[in-house]
């Protein structure tokens, strides 16, 4: 699971008002290289919740992303590359995603999160 995906995931358990972001518990992180594409990154920058990305990347062991970001920083190649690395190249291979409201744990195995709910949670 990439942080791009994590930035989109939200706990959809019944009764939860804000299930985003899911807290990450790391067991295994893998880095996989992805082609660098500035246009895509700029498109994504507008969508993502940057603060959640920074926190998640730190938990995954990458501390290079600045705490705050402005759209103007997208002109900087240095920032774009760090953004690219955090968003696209860090994979949570094994771990858990935790709902911020209920504490419900969603497992991540072999890079695949399982977000299915139990009958009593829908």
């Amino acid at each position, binding site marked *: 699971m990439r942080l791009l995906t994590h930035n989109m995931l939200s706990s*959809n358990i019944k009764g939860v008002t804000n299930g985003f972001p899911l807290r990450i518990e790391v067991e295994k992180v893998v880095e996989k290289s992805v082609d660098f594409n500035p246009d895509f990154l700029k498109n994504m920058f507008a969508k993502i919740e940057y603060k959640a990305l920074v926190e998640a990347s730190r938990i995954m062991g990458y501390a290079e992303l600045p705490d705050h970001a402005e759209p103007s920083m997208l002109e900087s190649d240095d920032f774009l590359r760090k953004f690219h690395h955090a968003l696209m190249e860090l994979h949570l291979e094994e771990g858990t995603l935790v709902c911020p409201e209920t504490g419900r744990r969603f*497992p991540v195995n072999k890079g695949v999160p399982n977000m299915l709910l139990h009958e009593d949670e829908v």
Partner: protein
Amino acid sequence: MVLGIASASRFYFKRGFGHSSVIRSSFCSLRSSSDMKEVSSDKGSSGSALAGGDSPALPPVKVGASLRSPSSVVQSTPEIEKKYVHRVYDAIAPHFSSTRFAKWPKVSAFLNSLAAGSLVLDAGCGNGKYLGLNPNCYFIGCDISAPLIKICADRGHEVLVADAVNLPYRTGYGDAAISIAVLHHLSTERRRRKAVDELIRVVKKGGFVLITVWAREQEDGALLNKWTPLTQKYLEEWVGPGSPRVRSPSSPLTLESIPEAEENGSREQLKEFTDKYTDLRSLQLRHLHMNSQAADLSLASLTKKGCEDQQEFFVPWHLPYHRAEVSGASANAVASGLAKKDDKKGAVVYNRYYHVFSEGELEK
């Protein structure tokens, strides 16, 4: 929506990332018996989450069927889907995947028409046939079948296990969403409607959604005869509104009583069978996106489907004996009545539930 990105640079999301791009054969891996246990649809690795992992803040657990609120009736999975969709696809996953290679032209055209750099969400992605089809877009797929998702993950795609009726995505994140041959597996109109609502919710305002389902009206009317209609008795027991009922052991709803559908044993014949169903109701829901924020979908009244207007079917899937998975999960399936053996055709026959869409139904 303004199409076109000025930059001419192409980029690729490498599938495999240094893995070989050869699809790793799943023939040797037997499905674990846990797939065939009588569990709710959210099986798989989340099964252990019930034991002690949950915080005390969770509401009390068991609710009787009659106490369920309308919204939970929509979202909790009806028995017919568990038996005739989820368990079947889990059991046949590798075989099913090996037959899903032909890409439907309308879907390809839609995906290739999207702006470069789009984020595309595939809800019910199956074996990931369409993931990465447009190399200029980024795809995230989900499916309720963990074995099918595993096949996608082995090919290097970004995927997760989730329910199309309740997508775990933030609102308005995607640029486009697709639902290809998925909605017809949902057994009630409310669930189908909810799944459509979800597709619209997860894309941004002005984004595109493509939904493809099997149509009742086929060019070759004789093909419908190959499918097994659910009789009125089954419609009452399984598909009617209200809480799903537990299937009693003495219920006649075993596959013995359903007439055998026609032969489609070999892989070549299966491909032919699939290709014939090109008359699909592909629908671009572009116009709904003018109101995607308002989510202005008024509920049509539930229509009761009479026998003469048959739309609920069992469609057979013949899983040949020589497929390794037959000895594992399918032995259980035959024993529990989910499937039956056909020695004449050399295959285990599963029935999959489909609601086929009549003309105009999808637009409602």
